[in-house]
């Protein structure tokens, strides 16, 4: 298999090329820009056939163009970051509501002010209720694999929902790493052309999309989306397993478990920071700590069942949130704690707010968190539920 040394953004662009995407509509925003620059370069060099790039004047228009393109049956892609994603918000509901399998890469970036271009998950997590599936990539390879799998999952007959692949600003987007890319023929076998649920170019049977839904009908369509999200869990596991069989990297778990078999303390989190956490787990294990890592790959649909299983055998879960819901707590912490409320397994859970706006989370930080968790478990009582870990006191 060919290997390339690429940035996270170029990995995404190559995946778009290899997935034989037909329409890309996007607006440049730091740190996403190099994704669409690379795609434009593919087109300029004649490396892709049948790919239309639609330059638009804002992210709201980008998503609107994607919705139109996807409704005609085309395989559609866009990419954005932070304020751009927020500007798309209205259209994100539209894409999911109309059941259009658009795939987007969101390069996680902190929301302003203060103006920031560094990593923070609050932008994508703010879109959790739009009906989009969300996949958090740990490294450049996962960005590439994620985009390819996203099209297959999104376009699955039981799903038909849009998918967001999330990567960290700069930590992944602009950092080069070896990415293993299968041959085009192998990808074509894995990802056949899209079979749309409906197509606006069906001139024999005209219909309207986004028609009025009175109180008599709206409710049922919401249920259909909820059901498709549940179905998506099965599809994600199937597609992840198939990807593993074909290309050697297995994505059948929605939560990737790392050394959790006999772990007392588990670090839970999403995205690139889990690479650091895994490194810290190895070091802590060599020092005698029984720790493990649980990387939540898919945040929507939320892997409830896998979390039940994990929680049964651990004493404490340290949830590392690179995001914050003001007035409440870290968003992953909030979700995970909520899932476990009605189960018998209720480990001690503590929320560490880390890395906001691109602040580094180092191996030593994770070690300090492990020590803190161990003390809490020994006492059997939380010191505090939410800790702003890096705060200058």
């Amino acid at each position, binding site marked *: 298999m060919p290997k390339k040394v690429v940035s996270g953004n170029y990995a995404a662009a190559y995946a778009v090329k290899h997935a034989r995407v037909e329409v890309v509509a996007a607006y440049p925003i730091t740190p996403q820009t190099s994704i669409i620059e690379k795609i434009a370069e593919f087109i300029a060099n004649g490396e892709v056939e049948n790919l239309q790039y639609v330059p638009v004047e804002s992210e709201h228009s980008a998503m609107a163009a994607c919705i139109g393109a996807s409704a005609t049956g085309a395989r559609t892609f866009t990419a954005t970051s932070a304020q751009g994603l927020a500007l798309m918000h209205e259209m994100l509901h539209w894409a999911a509501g109309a059941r259009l399998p658009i795939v987007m890469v969101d390069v996680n970036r902190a929301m302003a002010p203060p103006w920031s271009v560094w990593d923070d998950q609050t932008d994508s997590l703010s879109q959790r209720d739009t009906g989009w599936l969300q996949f958090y990539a740990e490294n450049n390879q996962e960005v590439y694999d994620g985009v390819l799998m996203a099209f297959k999952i999104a376009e699955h007959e039981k799903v038909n929902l849009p998918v967001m692949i999330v990567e960290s600003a700069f930590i992944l987007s602009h950092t080069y790493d070896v990415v293993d890319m299968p041959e085009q023929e192998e990808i074509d076998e894995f990802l056949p052309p899209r079979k749309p649920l409906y197509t606006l170019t069906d001139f024999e049977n005209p219909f309207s999309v986004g028609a009025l839904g009175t109180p008599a009908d709206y409710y*049922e369509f919401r249920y259909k989306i909820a059901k498709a999200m549940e179905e998506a869990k099965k599809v994600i596991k199937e597609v992840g397993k198939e990807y593993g069989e074909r290309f050697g990297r297995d994505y059948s778990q929605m939560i990737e478990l790392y050394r959790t078999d006999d772990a007392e303390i588990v670090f839970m989190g999403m995205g690139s920071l889990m690479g650091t956490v895994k490194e810290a787990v190895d070091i802590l294990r060599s020092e005698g700590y029984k720790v493990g890592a649980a990387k939540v790959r898919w945040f929507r649909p939320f892997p409830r069942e896998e979390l039940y299983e994990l929680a049964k055998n651990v004493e404490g879960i340290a949830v590392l949130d690179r995001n914050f819901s003001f007035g409440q707590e870290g968003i992953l912490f909030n979700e995970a704690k909520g899932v476990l409320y009605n189960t018998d397994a209720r480990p001690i859970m503590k929320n560490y707010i880390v890395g906001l706006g691109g602040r580094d989370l180092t191996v030593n930080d994770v070690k300090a968190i492990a020590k803190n968790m161990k003390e809490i478990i020994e006492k059997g009582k939380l010191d505090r539920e939410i800790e702003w870990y890096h705060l200058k006191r």
Partner: protein
Amino acid sequence: MNTLFGEKKAKAEKLVFKSVDEYPEAPITLGTTLLNFTGDWRTFMPVVDESKCIRCYICWKFCPEPAIYIKEDGHVAIDYDYCKGCGICANECPTKAITMVREEK
């Protein structure tokens, strides 16, 4: 077809879904404007007095829906399935042949 002198336009069957499984996967409809019977939004209904009507068809031109059609004899009639009761026809009628009447439901 809704031509100048013609029959009332073809009417679609209103789609009624009895269970969630009968709904289409995506919220798409065939011929939406025919299927949505917007007439039940109405509070005041237009009533045409044919003795005052001079067949100028200003009401027909101004109706935004269009819920007004022209009968074989040249008089206008209202399609109450789609008339929302906006009253533009009554306002524009030069001979006051159309009046808005509170509808008993």
